[in-house]
Structure formats: C-alpha cells, structure tokens
C-alpha cells in the first residue's frame, strides 16, 4: 500500500517540464519572487531570485531564518549533479536533497538556503514540489533538463 509520502514523491516525479522554446535569455535584470504557502499547520515561505545564469532560492519553515546554504549544479562531463554545503548543516542535510533534485529536473545552476528541519521527508517533498511548480510557472527552467537515470 502506498504511503502518503510515496504518493507525494510520485507526483513530484511526474511534474513534467515541457520543452520551452524561445526562453527569453535577453531579459536583463534580477527578478525577485516571494510567496508563502500554508500546509496543515506549517507555513512555508519561498523566495526566488533569478540572476542571468543562476537562481538563488530560500525556503523558510515557519520563520524567516536563513538556514543552511547549498550550492548545486550539473558537472561535466557526465552531467551528474553535485551539491556542496556552503554554510551550516551537518551530514544529514534536509536541503541538499532538494537542491540536488531541483538541478536534475530543471538543469539550472542553483544556490539554495533552507531551514526545514530534518526527519521530515514529507514536508521536504511538498516544499520541493511547490518550488518546482513555481520555477516552471515563472519560466526559469532550461529547455532540455537533465533526466534522473
């Protein structure tokens, strides 16, 4: 029987990215998007700052604390994704998984700050899904994203 966690994971995997043609790379300037979602009794804040070649994301769990900072990008030659913990955090970091999957799905170069507590994979998956949706809606995803093998 599928647990709720598995269901959310499946739906995250199914968030498809349509090929984008004519992505406007000429749009100059930095764009900041902020939004908040409430889930059950948890408030998640999202901040997305789009730079020309990189995206900075902050996920706030119930507060405006900065959290741990991660950098993730695809690395040549095999297009695998590497994640580095840049600030804070221990080895079982909540945000590094999200950063990893974001880069895999979107092909973007990501810097992510996240203060979601550990041992909460369901919340992690939901936050990731919301963020993915928003990134797609804003049109920030690359035309040919990396696929998970």
């Amino acid at each position: 029987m599928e647990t709720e966690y598995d269901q959310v994971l499946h739906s995250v995997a199914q968030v498809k990215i349509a090929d984008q043609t004519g992505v406007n790379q000429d749009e100059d300037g930095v764009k900041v998007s902020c939004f908040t979602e409430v889930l059950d009794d948890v408030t998640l804040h999202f901040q997305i700052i789009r730079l020309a070649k990189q995206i900075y994301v902050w996920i706030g769990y119930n507060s405006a604390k900065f959290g741990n900072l991660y950098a993730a990008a695809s690395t040549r030659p095999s297009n695998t994704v590497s994640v580095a913990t840049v600030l804070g955090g221990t080895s079982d970091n909540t945000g590094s998984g999200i950063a990893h999957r974001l880069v895999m799905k979107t092909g973007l170069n990501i810097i992510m700050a996240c203060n979601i507590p550990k041992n909460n994979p369901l919340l992690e998956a939901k936050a990731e899904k919301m963020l993915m949706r928003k990134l797609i809606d804003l049109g920030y995803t690359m035309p040919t994203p990396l696929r998970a093998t």
Partner: protein
Amino acid sequence: MESVDSNFPVRHRKFSLEIKGNKTEIVICSYEDHILVIATQIGAMGTILHARKEEGMSVEPTFSVSVIFGKRDEPMLIATARRLIDHISSFVPSKPLVLSLGLKDHSSETLKEIVAAVIENRLW
C-alpha cells in the same frame, strides 16, 4: 525598489547602478538571523563570503570573515565584507552577513562604490 509584500517575513530591496561601465545589480535581503547582499555584474552569485562579529571580551570588536564559496585569493573581497559587517554590527550586532560578489573587476573603486550603494540602501 523595496519589497511590496508586507506579509512576507523577509524584506528585500533591489536596485541597479553602473560602476565603471558595468551594470551592477544589487539585492539586499533581511532575514531573521542573517543579512544577505548579492552584488552581481556577471549574472551569477560569484564568490560568497560570510562575515560575523565575534563575541569577545575586549572593548574593540572583532570580526570573522571568510570566503565560503569561490575565489579565496582576493583580499579586496574580504575587505569589502569586513567593511559591511562593521557597519551592520553597529546597528544589528547579532546578524551575520552573507555577501555574494559576482564582479567583472575587483578593483577598490568598484568595491567602494558597491559598499557605498549597499549602505545607502541598507535594510538594517
């Protein structure tokens, strides 16, 4: 340009200026326990530094500044972070600074202008 969403817990301010012919975008964000400053000319975050005021016993404040991502051989970037955390800590002593500098040149004139612009538009 200040953030318009009064319900969002993080305030931010975004503006752009020209320094030595290079368009420089600056974003300042104020979190509960950190200040984030992004200054970019290259469209990416570039080198990321972390700076904080040390709890100390002496009268003179001491600061810990380090590069956490990117170029570690540019003392001018560290000096810039030091200058900014000095300013921040006189207003909000407990907030460390995360400074991201993605610049085409690391000359002192450029960095001075960035510091001046950030202080002028500060959120602390």
